[in-house]
Structure formats: C-alpha cells, structure tokens
C-alpha cells in the first residue's frame, strides 16, 4: 500500500468535486467531525503526556517553537520580494505556513501507526504550541509601520478559537484521566478515529477541489512555493528532531508539523486581523496544494529523510 487508505477518501472527495458531483457534506457535519478530531487528538496526547514529567518538556518545547519562527520569517521575504505579492498577502500566507494543520498531523500519525513506527506521545503538545506563534508573527509583519494592529480581536480569535480550546481541553482531560480513566471513552474517541478521519478527508477533498480554481489566478510562483516550502520546513523539522534526540517517528511528526500549513485556525484569524489579505490565495495554496502534497508526497518523504538522517546530525 503506497499510502494510507484514508488518503483515498481525500482523493475521492477531490474527484467528486472536480467532476461537479452533487455530493455535498453538510456544514454541520464538517463542524461535528472537526470537533471530534480535535478532541480525540487532544485526548490521545493527554493520555501519553501523563507518562512524562511535564517540566522536562519545557526546554524542547521552547526550542521547537523558536526554530519554527524561522518558517514565517523566511516565507514572508520570499513571497513579498521574490514572489512580488502585496505585504498583506505575503504576511498572511507566511502565517498560514508557519502555523500547523491538525489533520495533516493526524494522517502522519496514522502513517506511522500503519508501519509500526512509534513516536513520542508528547508531540501533541508541540502541535498546540505551534498553532499560534506564526499567526502573531504574520500580523506583526502585515502591520509593520502602521499603528492599527488589531491585537485584541486576534488574541481572542486565536485563544478562544475551537482548535485551541478543544486540543488543549482534550489534552488536559486526557492528562487528568490517564490511560485507565479514559478507557470508557476509548471506543468513541480512539477506535472510531480512523473512520471519522476518512469522512473528514472526503469533505476536505470536496472543499480543496473548490479552491483549485482560485489557484489559476495565483501564478506559478505560488504553486512552486506551496510545494518547495513544505519540503524545506520538513527538513528543518527532521534536523531539529535529531538535535532534540527524538525517535524516527517523532522526527516525522515534527517535520509534518513544520511542513504543514494551517487551514482551520489561520484563515479565521487572518480574516479578522489582516482583512485586506485575499483569503482565496492563502487558503488556495494551503489547502489546494500543500495539504494534498503533504498527504501524498511530503509525509513519506519526511519518513525517508528521518531514517536517512537519524544519528547523522
């Protein structure tokens, strides 16, 4: 099997969208599935986290976040100077790529599980930590030189947004409950996880197909950016993971976090904080290209890199 069966659901959705099928997943189901996935990922991470002393994660967490700031800080000048995109658009896209995609992370986890590769359970903590710093950087860059940064609404949007509330909430519930306490919920949150992920990917395929039209206007530079940037960020993730002595599985997950582009938290936050940025371009790149690219090419590539580079750096 070259890739995960769940990815075939994404491709099915993509095909259905491209042939203009009347298949439609109701918005309410999208909401329900995303709530389920965010909670389940948080819970799983929390249960694993209960096995580690929390303080030991402080330094690696700080390193992971600091290195990750390189992604938006590199992406912005590339997009603005080389790609000649307006400042607001370049900053918004940089924020999308600096932040993370929870679903890409879930697919990478299931890629590893299918191959029997284990990973550090606390990677979910990094997922939570990496969600928002890039959004702040994106807004700061977009607003440089003007005093009208809307920090209040942005902070509220990010920290009260459902991604953070459910991921962090699930993490805490899982951590408090521990492996035994969470057992009664296993069937719902862990056994059904892959099926729910498959349905969500079917929906994302449909949505991604709808965004492809936007990309025709974006031009070849953005197409190249949306595939090369994740590969470079993925490499940065593998190198950072090696520096932190993570396992091969941990390296794949960190690479996936660095390489993925947010399309749930970032669009909502950017729309409020940088309204002049065109959401069609940033979501088109993040969801139309980078998301499928990571699913089909990126994750196997980061796995290959993690094996090759283990112990080298």
């Amino acid at each position, binding site marked *: 099997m070259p890739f995960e069966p769940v990815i075939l659901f994404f491709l099915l959705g993509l095909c259905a969208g491209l042939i203009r099928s009347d298949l*439609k*997943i109701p*918005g309410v189901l*999208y*909401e329900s599935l995303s709530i389920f996935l965010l909670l389940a990922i948080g819970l799983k991470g929390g249960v694993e986290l209960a096995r580690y002393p929390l303080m030991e994660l402080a330094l690696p967490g700080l390193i992971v976040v600091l290195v990750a700031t390189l992604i938006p800080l590199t992406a912005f000048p590339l997009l603005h100077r080389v790609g000649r995109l307006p400042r607001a658009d370049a900053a918004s896209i940089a924020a999308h790529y600096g932040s993370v995609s929870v679903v890409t992370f879930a697919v990478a986890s299931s890629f590893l599980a299918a191959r029997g590769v284990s990973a550090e359970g606390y990677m979910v903590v990094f997922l939570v930590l990496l969600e928002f710093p890039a959004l702040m950087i994106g807004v700061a860059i977009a607003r440089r030189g003007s005093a009208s940064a809307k920090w209040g*609404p942005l902070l509220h949007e990010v920290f009260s947004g459902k991604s953070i509330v459910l991921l962090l909430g699930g993490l805490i519930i899982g951590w408090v409950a521990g492996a035994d306490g969470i057992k009664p919920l296993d069937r719902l949150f862990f056994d059904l996880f892959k099926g729910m992920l498959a349905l969500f990917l079917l*929906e994302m395929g*449909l*949505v991604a197909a*709808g965004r492809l039209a936007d990309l025709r206007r974006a031009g070849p530079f953005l197409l190249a950016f949306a595939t090369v940037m994740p590969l470079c960020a993925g490499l940065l993730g593998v190198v950072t993971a090696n520096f932190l002595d993570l396992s091969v599985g941990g390296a794949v997950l960190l690479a996936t976090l660095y390489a993925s582009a947010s*399309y*749930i938290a970032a*669009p*909502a936050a950017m*729309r*409020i904080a940088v*309204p*002049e940025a065109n*959401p*069609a371009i940033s*979501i088109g790149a993040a969801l139309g290209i980078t998301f499928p690219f990571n699913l089909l090419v990126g994750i196997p590539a980061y796995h290959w890199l993690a094996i090759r580079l283990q112990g080298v750096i």
Partner: protein
Amino acid sequence: MTIQPTLRKLLTIVCEAELENSLLREFAHHGVTGYTITEARGHGAHGTRDAAWPASANIRIEVLCEERVALEIVESLQEKFYQNFGMVSFLSDVQVLRPEKF
C-alpha cells in the same frame, strides 16, 4: 381597540460568517437591542459561498431599529468592512407593533 402599527427600518446584512462577532460589537456600540442571525448561502462578487466549511459560510443578520440608528450602522459598515469583506446591506420600511421594543 384598533392596533396602530408604527414605521421602523429593517436593516438586513448578508456577509461572511467570520464577521459575526465584529458586527455584534458594532450593534452594541450603536445601542441596538435585538437582532436575528440566520445561516446563509449564495453567490455574488466573492464567488459561490456554499457554506461547505467555515471559510465559505455566510450569515444574514436582520435588525429592526429607528431610521437614524440604521443609517449610522450602514455608514459605519461601509467605512469598516465594505472594502475587504463580502458584504451586502439594505434597508426597508416595515411596520411594527410595540414600537418601544425597536
């Protein structure tokens, strides 16, 4: 006893769902006491808004108020949101009972 309807303005706004909180703050600022929000789909200058996921969802907000308040809100919306967001707003004359509510 005959019921005497009173004239008020119905302000209808169709816009991106992500603007909901910003608009509610706007209403509070202008002293609006009530509103109704419904989820909406449609097509316009910003393409098809099919509500398949939050980034393509619209809402339709209705506010009953005095003409002065409605005009103030419309002016403020035009200044703050028209340039960067998908938004349509329009006013219509309506007759209400219990005018003190609006």
